[in-house]
């Protein structure tokens, strides 16, 4: 049976539609909730978020994967209401964006506890919401190398992925050798791992995307739209054509089935100003036209936006 966990319950993978595989309803670093600079009323939050999701739905978007980690403002009850009112499937994650976003309670926890936390959120539910996580988030802390805590989280995630069949999605794919080794040691096939942010302006030069793909991993070109051409680009922005060429080159090497795309946008950022003019709908407004203009046919687009993420998200028996 093909099954994917969404915040409103399991759905068949056949129902996912076009998937935005690496997105955020709203992201904030742990502690940002203390700084009233960023506070918004619920009215403002819904006003900023609902039109983006509705438009995503109207353009043919089926599923929005929210990869906001456990301590980063993940708010599953809110996601449930958004999903119910807009018709967009929302997949929530368990796990952490990186060791440096895991608060002391989790920083002090061992692999076994972290794995139990992830398995609980995948099989029982997140907090008291009853919603089950559909993907496990892990990542590399700021600094460019995997920290001891990052590795502990990767190992716990691998065990939870093996136990539950839910896939892993990474923040950053730099320094991937320790990650690949951990997944091998834990018996997790690399096609169950999406190595993300292979395309961002800071990390792309240091990300051995082809090597990871040759090991069997999936590669996320998932910061599409963070462009230097924007009015006020973030530090991880990259020239539009450079990213597109990078992506087309990767696909041209025969890795289409391992490629996934997304925009990593915030509908309504929680602890930072966000990036003006960048939304999940970049996928429809810019990316798909660019890919068509580059000669990709409809069957290829379907594989990229539908088949690949559906295969990735489907819970393995």
């Amino acid at each position: 049976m093909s099954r994917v966990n969404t915040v409103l319950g399991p759905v068949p993978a056949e129902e996912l539609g076009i998937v935005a595989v690496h997105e955020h309803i709203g992201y904030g670093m742990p502690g940002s909730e203390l700084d009233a600079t960023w506070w918004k009323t619920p009215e403002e939050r819904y006003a900023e978020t609902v039109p983006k999701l509705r438009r995503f739905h109207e353009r043919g978007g089926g599923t929005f994967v929210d990869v906001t980690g456990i301590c980063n403002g993940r708010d599953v009850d809110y996601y449930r209401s958004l999903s119910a009112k807009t018709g967009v499937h929302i997949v929530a994650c368990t796990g952490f964006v990186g060791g440096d976003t895991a608060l002391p309670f989790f920083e002090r926890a061992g692999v076994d506890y972290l794995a139990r936390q992830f398995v609980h959120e995948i099989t029982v539910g997140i907090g008291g919401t009853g919603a089950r996580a559909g993907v496990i988030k892990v990542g590399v802390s700021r600094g460019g190398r995997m920290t001891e805590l990052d590795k502990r989280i990767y190992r716990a995630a691998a065990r939870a992925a093996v136990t539950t069949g839910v896939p892993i999605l990474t923040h950053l794919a730099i320094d991937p050798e320790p990650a690949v080794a951990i997944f091998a040691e834990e018996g997790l096939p690399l096609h169950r791992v999406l190595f993300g942010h292979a395309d961002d302006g800071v990390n792309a030069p240091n990300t051995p995307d082809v090597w990871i793909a040759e090991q069997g991993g999936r590669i996320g070109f998932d910061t599409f739209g963070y462009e230097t051409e924007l009015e006020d680009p973030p530090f991880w922005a990259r020239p539009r054509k450079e990213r597109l060429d990078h992506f087309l080159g990767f696909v041209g090497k025969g890795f289409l089935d391992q490629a996934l795309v997304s925009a990593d946008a915030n509908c309504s950022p929680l602890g930072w100003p966000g990036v003006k003019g960048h939304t999940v709908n970049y996928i429809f407004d810019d990316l798909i036209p660019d890919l068509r203009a580059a000669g990709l046919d409809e069957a290829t687009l379907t594989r990229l936006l539908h088949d690949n993420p559906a295969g990735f998200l489907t819970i393995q028996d």
Partner: protein
Amino acid sequence: MTDAPAAGGGVVNTVLGPVAADDLGVVAVHEALLSVLPGAEHGHDVTLDRAEIFATLAGKLAAFRDQGGKTIVDSTGMFHGRDLRLYEALSRSTGVHIVASTGMGPEELLGGYFLTPQTNPPTPWPADKFAALFTKEITEGMVIPRLERRAPAGLVATAAATGGMTATEESLFRGAARTALATGVPVSIRYGADAAHDLDVVLDEGLAADRVVVGGLDRKDAVAAGAPAEVARRGAYVALDHVGLNDDGAHITDRERAALVLDLVRAGHGDRVLLSGNAIGVAKGHPAYDLPFGHVLTAFVPLLESLGLAGRDVRRILADNPRDLLTLR
């Protein structure tokens, strides 16, 4: 509110608003009501039953009140389980004044927002940003995260790592001192490796020493170094704040604590001594420390008196000193 501040008299910020300083009575200055290790609220096996937490804390505060206590200071800062609506309800129902704190520390207990912000490079927060964050908790009110502000904080609390103050902790200490200068609340510091050094960091900001309480001065290493008397000589308050802790390798025992209190009083530092227990009313995500808030009153004061401490000194240490510290300047 039962205790409106007297016109022209000093006031203290409590969770129910300002009260007359003279109404504080016996104060426990370094305690924790609800103490949640950051992140524990997300633990799949951690339950936070507010009704149950309230019942536990109300029982402990009522016992403290019945033993002669009138004011309790939750010195855990803004990011360790502080629950303002719970504390307001507890204060109303038990009649115990509750002073809540702003501030954070040590560095290992901070969120990534302050340590690895979304900038390139991810430079940790400087003192001025901490000062602005903490100051608003007094000028605009303490936060319920992403929701609203409540009453102003009564003090700003921070701490350094026992291995020695980190660069970010120096920013926290300086930010706390600037907050005190800007608002008139006192500063509580839990020193790291060197009490005198860490006190100097806040004094270097131009803060008067009598606006500072140094916690943890009943640690063995501090006592061996003569830190309690040295801190008092500099004019800051000396918190012997592990009263009741007798089986911990890092701290002196109550008998030794009592001797230290008498030494400090004999040396003329009776106006600088504070006593507290660092008890934890309800602990989540870390070990409980289920010492009654009234332990100083029920067990330690009789010990002090048996050793000859005069009643006026007891009163000074339990009531007058904390009142002077907590009164807004």
